[in-house]
């Protein structure tokens, strides 16, 4: 149900070898909302984002302490299959990364792997529609995805992510390689996707966070460069009247 929380982060600490990348993060992510994570370069935004679907597992030496509860279940508990987590928590990256396959096959990829039994064409169309791409590609479904523009490729990656019906979509700087018009389209899309999915977006672009998100987390790093969450709250509040001086200094550009 909307309004409730979907993910609860409790005392999360994260290390790459001896280097502590995240320190003592606790917060809850509201369901069916857009949550933005902002902060200076190197503060651990992307590392934090990757904790939500155990993408950091793939990095040698990465270690996590604390809990990330997805609908009450700790995704770092022993015996949890990270692949299963990733099918429920999808991800879209900075640079559009469609497979060198047709548009149709890109969207159908996850469905096929999961042995989808329903009508594949319908499922592909539905995902492309929800990603606001259908009208532009409906006659090109069997053309290469690489022929699409950057903005279209990114929406295709979103369609590919939502095809397997995840509950959460993580977006790591999804617009940084796009022009302003394509960016606004993706932002618009995020708002409509939030009706059915929970979105967590990492962005360097504060204005984008302000435009698109309901809730914002501001991260920065401590002396030893470990990332912390300084302030977390409603976006309108955080950008109009931040509580913490570090947030104020960052968003007004008095500290870079």
């Amino acid at each position, binding site marked *: 149900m909307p309004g409730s929380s979907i993910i609860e982060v409790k005392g999360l600490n994260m290390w790459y070898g001896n280097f502590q990348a995240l320190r003592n993060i606790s917060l809850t992510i509201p369901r069916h909302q857009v949550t933005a994570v902002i902060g200076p370069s190197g503060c651990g935004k992307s590392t934090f984002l990757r904790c939500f679907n155990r993408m950091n597992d793939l990095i040698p030496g990465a270690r996590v302490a604390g809990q990330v509860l997805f609908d009450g279940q700790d995704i770092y508990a022993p015996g949890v299959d990270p692949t299963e987590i990733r099918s429920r928590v999808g991800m879209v990256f900075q640079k559009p990364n469609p497979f060198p396959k047709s548009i149709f096959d890109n969207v159908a990829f996850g469905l096929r792997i999961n042995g989808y039994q329903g009508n594949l064409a319908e499922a592909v169309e539905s995902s492309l529609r929800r990603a606001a791409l259908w009208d532009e590609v409906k006659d090109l479904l069997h053309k290469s995805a690489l022929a699409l523009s950057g903005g279209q490729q990114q929406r295709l990656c979103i369609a590919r992510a939502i095809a397997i019906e995840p509950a959460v979509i993580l977006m790591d700087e999804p617009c940084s390689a796009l022009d302003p018009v394509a960016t606004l389209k993706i932002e618009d899309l995020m708002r409509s996707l939030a009706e059915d999915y929970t979105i967590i977006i990492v962005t360097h672009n*504060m*204005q984008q966070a*302000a435009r698109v998100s309901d809730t914002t987390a501001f991260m920065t790093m401590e002396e030893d460069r470990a990332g912390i969450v300084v302030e977390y709250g409603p976006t309108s509040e955080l*950008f*109009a*009247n*931040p509580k913490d001086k570090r*947030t*104020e200094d960052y*968003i*007004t*550009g*008095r*500290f*870079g």
Partner: protein
Amino acid sequence: MEMRTAFHKRLREIQNDILAMGSMVEKAIMRSIEALKNRDLEMAHRIIAEDQKINEKRFDIEEKCIQLIATQQPMASDLRSIICILNIITELERIGDYAEGIAKIVIMIGDEPPLKPLIDVPRMAEKTASMLHRSLEAFVTCDTETARKVVSEDNEVDALYDQVFRELISFMVEDPKTITRATRLIWVAHNLERSADRVTNICERVVYFVTGKMEEIGASKY
């Protein structure tokens, strides 16, 4: 490390513009009462002409604020500061109009003999001008304490207005021939009373700028 020096420099320039506009308005109020005391019609005409400059200044500042919003995406206290400035200039412009109104009354009065020596009306003007001055100082120094104090002083202006009103009514009751002259003086006092109320609005905006909270600080008697 300061990252947006050019933007913050422009914001400070606008704050200086506000002080300049405030001083134009303050001067207009004081001069309008001088003109009344001295029956100085020439000065009254000058005040009316100079109100045009106050109006232009307001549009000039508003234009600069719009440009900063459109091009710089101000956030947090920067955003609140610009919103506060947009509100302050509206109040200043209106106070300027009240001074212009007094100048017009001075012209209406012309060389009619004075009804009584002016004592409380100039006091109201001094008080109002001083409140205005300090409200803008409170803005540039982010001083909510002063802002709240200035609001509390509005009572004094209200009390003076009461006194002027009662005194002039008694003149009118005693001798109906004074009604026209007394009414005009009531208008003058009324304009000053309204000006002080506008100053309290400025103070409320200063508190919003500093704290992020919108609140009505003191309700005026009038």
